[in-house]
């Protein structure tokens, strides 16, 4: 290690993208297997990362394994580029891999995301990396890991429908709104990570490679490009995505996922795009919502 003193402190150098080459090889093998068997959870030897579990240790390891020096990285946290998790992970790879980073979903070649899929359609040259807290969609119905593996192996997914049945029995409609189970390539049932079900249709037939990393649970799974992804439902209660009564208050976009922002303690609220990059892009292009700043005042 070429540690030369700067101001009395030794400068630390990292291997490219933090992980050592053998670890990245191991993760790449798991990723290749995951791509070969779409939706199947491949175990891998997840490493301790310099961040707490639940902050994207799985996603970071997958990103580190697929990242090259010429890649352009974007990190999304709940749709936003400027929240703690996104800023921290972006900074992590700027420091350890010296890759270019961006907030633009169009410019990025690797996008690591927590809980959202960008509104901008993805392209073939892009990789979307999801951070996954609990990879097992059957976990809350069947706590035994040995049993859930059997159920996956034999494609016994009646249990998943029991959950949807319970939703309808209790609420009159399927009340699962995030981490909504999907069937991948007609075989494995998969947890799409806690993205809103609004984003489920974007997983289907997506041109980009989609990788899912769960650090604590040590699992990687994948959806290869142009793969059929179907959200589970009943014939008489078909899958539906959330609808919003009003367009985005800043960019007037419709058909996008909106966040509710409380403005005061008198019931004031606004609905804005959860995808900040998409919203900014539309505002720059001149779209104005009802609460947007007048032109010229700047954002």
């Amino acid at each position, binding site marked *: 290690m070429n540690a030369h003193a700067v101001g009395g402190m030794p400068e630390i150098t990292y291997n490219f993208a933090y992980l050592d080459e053998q670890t990245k090889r191991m993760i790449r093998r798991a990723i290749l297997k995951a791509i070969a068997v779409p939706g199947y959870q491949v175990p891998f030897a997840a490493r301790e990362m310099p961040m707490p579990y639940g902050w994207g240790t799985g996603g970071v390891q997958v990103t580190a394994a697929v990242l090259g020096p010429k890649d352009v990285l974007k990190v999304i946290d709940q749709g936003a580029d400027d929240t703690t998790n996104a800023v921290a992970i972006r900074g992590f790879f700027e420091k350890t891999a010296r890759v270019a980073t961006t907030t633009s979903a169009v410019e990025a070649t690797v996008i690591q995301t927590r809980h959202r899929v960008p509104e901008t359609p993805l392209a073939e040259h892009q990789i979307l990396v999801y951070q996954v807290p609990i990879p097992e969609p059957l976990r809350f*119905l069947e706590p035994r890991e040995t049993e859930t593996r059997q159920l996956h192996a*034999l494609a016994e997914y*009646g249990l998943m429908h*029991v959950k949807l049945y*319970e939703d309808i*029995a209790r609420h009159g409609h399927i009340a699962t709104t995030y981490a909504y189970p999907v069937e991948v390539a007609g075989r494995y049932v998969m947890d799409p990570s806690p993205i809103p079900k609004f984003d489920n249709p974007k997983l289907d037939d997506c041109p980009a490679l989609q990788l899912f990393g769960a650090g604590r649970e040590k699992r990687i799974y994948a959806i290869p490009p142009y793969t059929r992804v179907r959200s589970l439902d*009943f014939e*008489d209660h078909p899958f539906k995505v959330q609808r919003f009564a009003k367009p985005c208050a800043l960019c007037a976009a419709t058909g996008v996922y909106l966040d509710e922002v409380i403005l005061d303690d008198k019931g004031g609220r606004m609905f804005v795009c959860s995808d900040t990059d998409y919203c900014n892009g539309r505002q720059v292009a001149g779209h104005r919502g009802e609460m947007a700043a007048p032109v010229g005042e700047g954002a």
Partner: protein
Amino acid sequence: MTDTPLLIADGLSKNYGNRIGCRDVSLEVYPGEVLAVVGESGSGKSTLLGLLSTELEPSAGRVSYRLRDGRLADLASLGAAEKRLLMRTDWGFVRQNPADGLRMAVSAGGNVGERLMAVGWRHYGHIRDEALDWLAKVEIAGDRIDDDPRAFSGGMRQRLQIARNLVTRPRLVFMDEPTGGLDVSVQARLLDLIRGLVAELGLAVIIVTHDLAVARLLSHRMVVMRHGRVIETGITDQVLDDPREPYTQLLVSSVLAA
């Protein structure tokens, strides 16, 4: 009843280390027949049930079952997928403790509907209608369909467990002390219900019990077990009224007359 057996056990043995669970048991069960396995605690009844239902692996011997297509298959030769399909469609298993056989956090309707969804039912309305139908058959009020079994009494839970098992119209049901832990009046109603359903659906049942009254009421034939061996078999009334083995005589004479 037909003359081709539904299930054949041949020389079944099970050892737990040096201890014997079950030794050289052979028996046949015919379609539509109720077979009671009686004996005192520790006589190997539950081990035998475990072996017949393939939950336990035998140390020696084998179990064959006539599949719906008429083929007689050695259960040990079936793949895991085939075996599980068999267990959730053609078989039922009613356990002594309903909490082991039910999903306690899932509503009554979901419990009954689970097997239907497992065999590919994907229409909520149809699943619910079928569940309501079955709840009525086991005398659970339709307005309890969305309650979970934690809110049910012991007798109701046991009836729900029966509905959950019978919804796919199995041909063979294993019952392990289904009336154990219930008070006498509830027991009587449950037995009545089981008897009615068995006759109506033409089920074959293998029921394990230490209660001779249950065997008398439900079963056509019975086997008496002691120390892991079958010591007497025969028509239920014949065994109970005219027991040949000294141990069976002891069992029958130790029943308290009400």
